[in-house]
């Protein structure tokens, strides 16, 4: 007899995610993923100035802050035919890289590590042995026996205080924890160090965008100005600060994050055969080196892999209405033409229509509609998006640097290439791409300095800033790769106002409910087969779910072309 487990709230994520799973003979046999919060973004955007859309959509998510702003300015620029200056592309790339480095490290240590690291076990570690292990995997300086001993004393006092705070009621002592006490202590040490480190790397956003979270973007380029002879603009001091922040970021990634990732992974190789889920992977690609209009020269290539066949990469076109479509047959919305339809974002249509149980409830009616997330499909296929998809598409596209880091990691762990299609593969891919991004960010930085040296200080293309220069109607799509995966915005501009705005975000691809054909999306599919030793404490379920780095606030939205709230929209 199957046993229904409900995990709500899923913690150590952004947003509100609920999972209902069936467990039989110690394994998950069925799974339902539900987004339980909605805000109504796209409706709010209707009628507004397209140049403001980045600020609205940026607030879709404060964890992967900036990514929606980037997708949004690109969408508007695509619609209006604006090409940003090379320096603006570089500034955006640097902000993109800073976001990846901060976000992925925070995910690994603060959102994911406690699935693998037993904090309480660290109390039993031998500081001297801990130091030996730490020094054997990295030359990171904070590794003396005294350092670990002091940390352990602090941790002991914390636990003995009886107030466990964020560690209260964790799964400590669970049989699925496999790390030696000393490795757990290293994990705790780096949890705290990473917490302090992450506030530094985001200062790159502060320099270019004025603040973090939610730095400022600008349609047509970047709002900051370059003037190496003025105190009020990007000058040698500001640029040097960016350079030193990139160094600090790269050092931590190379000496702490990657060695920790490999050390932890080496104890959990069995997770290289668990949590694979879907066999299709989608990446829009990003980090232009010849401008956003030239995807062939993105650092992260664009493409689709079907059926785990790494010998072929299929092209992706965001403007083709037969490719990306959204379905709502299992979501709390309704379509005028019938709930079985799929709609391209430019033609989308939605009405909020909650048909779930009245709160408080124990279970969702998973046989009917059960989520505020819509269900996107690419040519009818369910796709996984995220770091693993990016690495696989780059690998299959023959990108040498990617093949090299992926190959080296597989060799170090002594696992086959098929281990990539798993919970562990997803977590490893995130680390590997962070390492690549850290290197690429230095290339972008050097290029920016070279351009300035050569006299190019332009950061903004203002020719089409004034609404009077715009056509009466325009449509655009802007694509990027959020840390959590493929992200795109679609806009329809009419009479210089937003007629229509749609976001299809990574967690919508991954966390959505089933489609009309009954196909599961990535979370649900990956959970099937995940072991659960004790249904009361489903630690293993969290491992697979956290390997996706769920981020729900932006996944849930509504768009309404002819909606019931339309008459309340005030024209600005």
């Amino acid at each position, binding site marked *: 007899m199957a046993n229904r487990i409900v*995990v709500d709230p899923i913690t150590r994520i952004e947003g509100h995610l609920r999972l209902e799973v069936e467990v039989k003979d110690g394994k998950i046999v069925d799974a339902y993923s539900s987004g339980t919060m909605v805000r109504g973004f796209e409706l709010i955007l209707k009628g507004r100035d397209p140049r403001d859309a980045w600020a609205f959509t940026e607030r879709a998510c404060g964890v992967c802050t900036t990514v929606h702003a980037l997708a949004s300015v690109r969408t508007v620029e695509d619609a209006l035919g604006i090409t940003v200056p090379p320096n603006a592309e570089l500034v955006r790339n640097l902000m993109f890289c800073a976001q990846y480095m901060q976000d992925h490290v925070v995910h690994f240590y603060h959102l994911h590590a406690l699935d693998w690291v037993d904090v309480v076990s660290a109390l039993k570690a031998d500081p001297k042995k801990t130091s030996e292990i730490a020094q054997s995997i990295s030359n990171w300086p904070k590794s003396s026996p005294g350092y670990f001993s002091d940390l352990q004393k602090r941790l002991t006092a914390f636990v003995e205080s009886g107030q466990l705070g964020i560690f209260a009621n964790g799964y400590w002592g669970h049989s699925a924890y496999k790390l030696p006490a000393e490795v757990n202590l290293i994990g705790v040490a780096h949890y705290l160090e990473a917490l302090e480190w992450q506030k530094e790397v985001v*200062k790159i956003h502060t320099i270019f965008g004025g603040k973090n979270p939610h730095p400022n973007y600008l349609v047509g380029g970047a709002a900051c100005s370059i003037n190496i002879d003025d105190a009020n603009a990007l000058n040698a001091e500001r640029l040097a600060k960016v350079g030193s922040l990139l160094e600090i970021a790269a050092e931590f990634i190379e000496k702490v994050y990657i060695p920790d990732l490999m050390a932890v992974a080496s104890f959990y190789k069995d997770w290289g055969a668990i949590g694979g889920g879907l066999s299709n992977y989608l990446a829009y690609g990003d980090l232009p080196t010849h401008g956003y209009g030239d995807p062939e020269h993105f650092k992260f290539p664009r493409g689709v892999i079907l059926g785990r066949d790494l010998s072929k990469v299929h092209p992706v076109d965001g403007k083709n209405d037969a490719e990306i479509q959204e379905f709502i047959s299992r979501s709390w919305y309704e379509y005028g033409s019938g709930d079985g339809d799929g709609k391209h974002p430019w033609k989308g249509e939605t009405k909020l229509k909650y048909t779930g149980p009245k709160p408080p409830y124990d279970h969702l009616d998973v046989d009917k509609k059960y989520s505020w997330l819509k269900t996107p499909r690419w040519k009818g296929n369910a796709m996984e998006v995220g770091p693993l998809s990016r690495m696989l598409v780059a690998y299959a596209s023959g990108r040498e640097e990617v093949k090299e880091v992926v190959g080296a990691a597989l060799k170090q762990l002594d696992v086959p290439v098929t281990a990539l299609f798993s919970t562990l593969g997803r977590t490893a891919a995130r680390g590997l791409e962070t390492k690549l991004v850290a290197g690429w960010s230095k290339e972008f930085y050097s290029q920016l300095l070279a351009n300035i040296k050569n006299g190019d200080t332009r950061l903004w293309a203002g020719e089409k800033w004034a609404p009077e220069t715009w056509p009466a109607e325009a449509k655009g799509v802007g694509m990027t790769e959020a840390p959590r995966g493929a992200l795109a915005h679609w806009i329809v501009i009419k009479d210089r106002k937003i007629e229509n705005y749609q976001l299809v975000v990574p967690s919508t691809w991954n966390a959505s409910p089933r489609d009309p054909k009954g196909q599961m999306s990535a979370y649900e599919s990956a959970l099937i087969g995940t072991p659960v030793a004790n249904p009361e404490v489903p630690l293993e379920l969290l491992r697979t779910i956290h390997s996706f780095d769920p981020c729900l606030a932006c996944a849930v939205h509504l768009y309404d072309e002819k909606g019931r709230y339309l008459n309340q929209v005030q024209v600005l």
Partner: protein
Amino acid sequence: MSEKALTIWEQAQVRGVSRRDFLRFCGWMAAAAGIETSALGAVVKALDTKPRLPVVWFHFQECTCCSESFIRSSHPIVSDIVLDKISLDYTETLQAAAGKQAEEALHATMTKYKGQYLMLVEGSVPTGEGGIYCCIAGRSAMDILQEAAKDAKAIVAWGSCASNGCIQAANPNPTGATPIHKLVEGKPVINVPGCPPIAEVMAGTVVHLLTFDRIPHLDGLGRPKAFYSRRVHDTCYRRPNYDAGLFVDSFDDENAKRGYCLYKVGCRGPVTYNSCGIIRWNDGVSYPIQSGHGCIGCSEAKFWDNGPFYQHLAAFPGFGIEKTADDIGVAMGAVTAVGIAAHAVTTNFRKRKQIKEGIRDSEKAPGEGKE
């Protein structure tokens, strides 16, 4: 409080912190909270004797930018806050436990520390359709809020979502998003607006509550005066350019490269109360205006509907902008002497030539406000 709970000084001792370092720590905690040196003794005593404050942090309709901002705090750093200063017993973003175990941790704190726990809320609460637009553990955000607020010692509404509804409450507010102070009765609610609030403002608010065991002085909108009594415009380092009539006409133009005032490209600094010009962002690195983009007014109620962002506030030239800001100021109990401000403006306008040419006023800093 738990009998075993260590005081903050005891915690510090365990960590090998010397008394001297501890006193220095008390000093900057006091400084962070805007306390005068004469009151330092009270800070030391408070931290000597207090066990860690139980805290529960809720997430409703939000994007988690407030949590992200909080972990950017440089003083105190967040690991010191969560390990040594408070006991963060419930927070969906960071806590180890999930689902049932998370809910048990929450209820254990609410029961054990009835009337003593601090409640932090990130996000607005949707009141439309019986609350079905935000449910956690099968319960509506509204239900959860009411239950937890009942026995909280005080409530802090983090960010614009919880303070004024923020983006989901922007027209047409499809889900009936409502700020916390409109839903809770009989409890002190401290509004800490901003999208998000500055990290050190968030940490400073917690430090204030922890150190002095009392609510900071609030303005008429429930915001701590220490952080929200000044307009961004009045504390902006580009203010002298405004007063001298030196403006950026379009982004990236020659005037932008000289750091002139952004008013004409749509800065909301004149109607926005926040600490961006004083504390600045991310340990003082910059703030929006310093990085060339106007303030979008993210700490003010209804700022999303006060747009478009790139349209300037009032016709230029003229001082209508001053009046608008001061009207808002009066509503908040922060009365500004219009005469003085206007006088200062005209004074600096006369100094336009000097400022443009970069000649420093040898007597006093431009824009100081008095002659």
